[in-house]
């Protein structure tokens, strides 16, 4: 990677890291109890939004992963004690998004939306993974916890568990897709503004 790319990786990683350290730490406190399950996906959406904007300026394979890794390391550093959940969570999100973007060399709208959607939706899968790794918990236990959280968030009207999980997945996918779309728009607008500025200074 070029020095320019590494600087952009560092700066966008710092922005995501700063967001995780400030807003990420307080979001669980700020959100009302019913909306608490949304804290994870909201942070994931904001994080992937920053990383995807950064990908506009680092048009290299692995650029997104590098931005996420810097953010994850900063998060690790900020907590005072090592907590592997958020660290691994960021790496999983950004790794999945990177997989989608591997197919395109230049930034394009649809892969951005898909990458964002998949990254945010992965937070639902992370619950199963971390419960299995850290607590040795069975999948059914985690499933019922997610269903309970979904009921708190969506209301008690939905009788079937799979409907709740499906609806939660859909919400997460839409949230991530919106982050991807916004990243695409913002990245393009910022690039145009910078190009315009460069022309003026010539």
């Amino acid at each position, binding site marked *: 990677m070029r020095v320019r790319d590494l600087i952009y990786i560092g700066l966008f990683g710092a922005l995501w890291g700063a967001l995780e350290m400030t807003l990420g730490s307080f979001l669980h406190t700020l959100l009302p109890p019913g909306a608490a399950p949304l804290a994870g996906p909201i942070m994931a959406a904001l994080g992937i939004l920053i990383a995807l904007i950064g990908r506009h300026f680092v048009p290299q394979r692995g650029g997104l992963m590098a931005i996420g890794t*810097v953010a994850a*390391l900063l998060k690790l550093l900020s907590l005072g004690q090592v907590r592997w959940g958020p660290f691994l969570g960021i790496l999983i999100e950004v790794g999945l998004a990177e997989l989608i973007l591997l197919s395109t060399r230049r930034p394009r709208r649809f892969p951005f939306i898909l990458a964002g959607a998949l990254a945010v939706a992965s937070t639902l899968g992370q619950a199963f993974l971390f419960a299995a790794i850290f607590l*040795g918990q069975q999948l059914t236990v985690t499933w019922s916890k997610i269903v309970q959280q979904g009921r708190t968030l969506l209301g008690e009207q939905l009788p079937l568990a799979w409907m709740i999980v499906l609806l939660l997945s859909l919400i997460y996918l839409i949230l991530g897709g919106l982050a991807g779309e916004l990243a695409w*728009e*913002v990245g393009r607008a910022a690039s145009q503004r910078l190009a315009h500025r460069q022309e003026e200074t010539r």
Partner: protein
Amino acid sequence: LIGPYGYVALFVWALVTAPWVEGPWLILMLVIIVGISLFGAKRQRQVAAWQRLLRLPVLLPLALLPLLVALFSAPKDLVVATIALSLSGLQVGAWIVLRVIVLLLAGSSFSAHISVTQIALLFEGIGLRGLGFALGVALNALPLTVRSVQDTWQALRLRGGLRRAWWRGIRLFLVATTVQIALRAEETLQAIYLRAFDPERRGQRLPWQRGDLFLSIGLIMLGVILILL
């Protein structure tokens, strides 16, 4: 004798093996992790890291977890002060707590023996070159980044940019923040060129210690045995 790779192996071993292991084998894992952690050169730092874990927010949930599992499990075959508990639930809860302690100690051992710079070098070793440099840029830029984001947000808020067309306001905020980052990146790039600094040239690598390989092989073999038992 044991270097960073050895402690990475120890942490990965604990992460992979602990979910599959139950009962007294978890105690064996605990003994191995404590033994290897105290064997390293940064023994005092390790003990200090363990002391930081001895806090009420960490200890209280660990102490209450077996009781909660026993309270909500069946069959209820134990009565303590008129509260019916499940003996098997108590045992399951104890193993969960032990598993959490194993992972906590493995994580603490990793962080006590490996610095953030070494973690970055580890990533460089697996092909993510320049990550150490990028992390350095990030650490230096962090305070300025936070300040610049706060300033942009305040400026937008004071101009009423988030009241009516809030979506447009948020988009403007993001574009302004991105442009600021891009301008800072160009400034940093110029400074780096002026100093003739080349991050590729510094290609440091984490050294392999003699014990790392033996420890890794030993842990893999033990992990396989523990999972199969």
